[in-house]
């Protein structure tokens, strides 16, 4: 039974990261009906940016809340700006082009960012210092929970609760939902659709940046091409939850994280990918719109 709870804890940790990254995919898809394939690479880039911020400005500080907050704030701002630039350069000029052109542009942007990371930070694996956060670990009845795991879970849940509140209860949130349904009708309401799209990229890439930093703090080793791997998992999480659906991405991310952890715990981590994609296919066969995909029949 120990292994069950241990893998549940591990699964919730990685699931939180998947969920944060999946939100970026699903929000952009919801508004633009576009899969932003470069999202995973911005996640990878955020880990490198965070490491550089630490090395350059905070070298040697350990166990410091201020240092951690500085890393998150600086990285969040830089990556959100990269997200804005990405949308302006790679997607906005193709807004009215055929869907396939935008997909190709997204894949191209993914490669550009990935290679950019390699040029700036090099092709070798880099490591987050182990002592940015306290290395405390609790043993609760044989289940080990580390400080960073608690941080990841709590911060992710807080961010997601805040996001749901923002989308469901605020005026701008309503404008975001309206824009995801109908751009022209939204314009008639006085909604500046371009501004909503920029905002979505800012929020989406900021969440991705938090996820990327968590990857660095939790696994420590970061690679220039890791965005592809994490991006793929998050993308699968978004589809499992129902792409375009915000709570769906959260649930999909958590479920996928737990599923992957159980496969690693009970079968073998080398099989995790195979089982994950089998799960994806099974879900798509049973529920093509994902777990929380749209169910409302609209009268036309």
């Amino acid at each position, binding site marked *: 039974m120990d292994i069950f709870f241990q893998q549940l804890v591990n699964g919730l940790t990685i699931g939180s990261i998947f969920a944060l990254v999946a939100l970026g995919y699903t929000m952009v898809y919801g508004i633009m009906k576009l899969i932003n394939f470069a999202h995973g690479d911005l996640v990878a880039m955020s880990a490198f940016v965070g490491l550089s911020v630490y090395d350059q400005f905070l070298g040697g500080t350990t166990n410091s809340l201020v240092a951690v907050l500085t890393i998150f704030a600086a990285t969040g701002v830089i990556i959100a700006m990269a997200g804005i630039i990405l949308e302006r350069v790679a997607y906005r000029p193709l807004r009215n082009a055929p869907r396939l052109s935008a997909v190709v542009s997204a894949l191209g942007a993914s490669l550009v960012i990935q290679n950019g990371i390699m040029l700036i930070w090099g092709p070798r694996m880099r490591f987050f210092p182990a002592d940015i956060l306290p290395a405390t670990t609790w043993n609760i009845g044989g289940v080990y929970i580390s400080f960073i795991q608690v941080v990841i879970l709590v911060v992710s849940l807080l961010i997601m609760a805040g996001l749901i509140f923002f989308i469901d209860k605020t*005026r701008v949130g309503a*404008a975001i939902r309206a824009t995801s349904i109908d751009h022209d009708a939204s*314009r*008639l309401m*006085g909604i500046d659709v371009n501004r909503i799209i920029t905002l979505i990229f800012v929020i989406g890439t900021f969440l991705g940046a938090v996820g990327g930093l968590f990857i660095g703090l939790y696994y420590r080793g970061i690679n220039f091409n890791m965005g592809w791997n994490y991006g793929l998992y998050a993308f699968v999480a978004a589809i499992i939850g129902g792409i375009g659906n915000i709570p769906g991405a959260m649930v999909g991310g958590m479920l996928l994280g737990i599923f992957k952890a159980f496969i690693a715990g009970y079968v073998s981590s080398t099989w995790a990918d195979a089982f994950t994609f089998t799960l994806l296919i099974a879900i798509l066969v049973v529920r093509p719109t994902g777990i929380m995909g*749209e169910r*409302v029949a*609209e009268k036309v």
Partner: protein
Amino acid sequence: MNKKNNIMFEVKDLEVSYGSIKAIKGISIQVAKGEIVTILGANGAGKTTTLRTISRLHDPNAGTILFKGEDITTTPAHKIVSMGISHSPEGRRIFGILTVEENLILGSYSQKSTDKKTLNWVYDLFPRLAERKRQLAGTLSGGEQQMLAIGRALMSRPEMLLLDEPSLGLAPILVKAIFKTVKEIAHSGVTVLLVEQNAKAALKLADRAYVLEVGKLVLSGTSKELLASEKIQEAYLGKKRK
């Protein structure tokens, strides 16, 4: 046209095309404050395109659009509503997976906040919407969706309302009810520019009318004149030639 010197809205020599196809071939329209003006025409005449161009969902190729003396020909679409022009579009285009009340609140997005008085006014005009305010808009009947589309457009407290085919797909009794409400809206001081295929109902409601045929204005005048015109009777009111 006794209100001629009170022109609030004007379209001059408007030309619009979709790719290489010319949809609007140089039309001019004037609307005075407080008037109900209707644009009639068959399918594909360019009525909807005209309204969409006024709302700036479409770019004109030539011509100018003036509202209260201001040139709005190049104003971005999302700024039109805060200038006082609100558009209830063809096909209603309500936000189906949002509730009725959320749709109405979005109608007032151009204001700083949603005015409770305006919301109550819309609920008074369309009591059905008040009954169903917590319901998802996509689950409303066609008539209720049309009420919602008009109500949503009124939430910005417009000076001029663009109405695109409010009678489309509705039972005659509902058309009657909706047109009655449009009259009420006009009486409250909102200028109305109405696009319709239902010429009879539209002419009964409107002060003046323009008739569009494949992108060109072929006729204009007061509703009385047009109702009496033989050409209109034949083409749009279904009366046989004697």
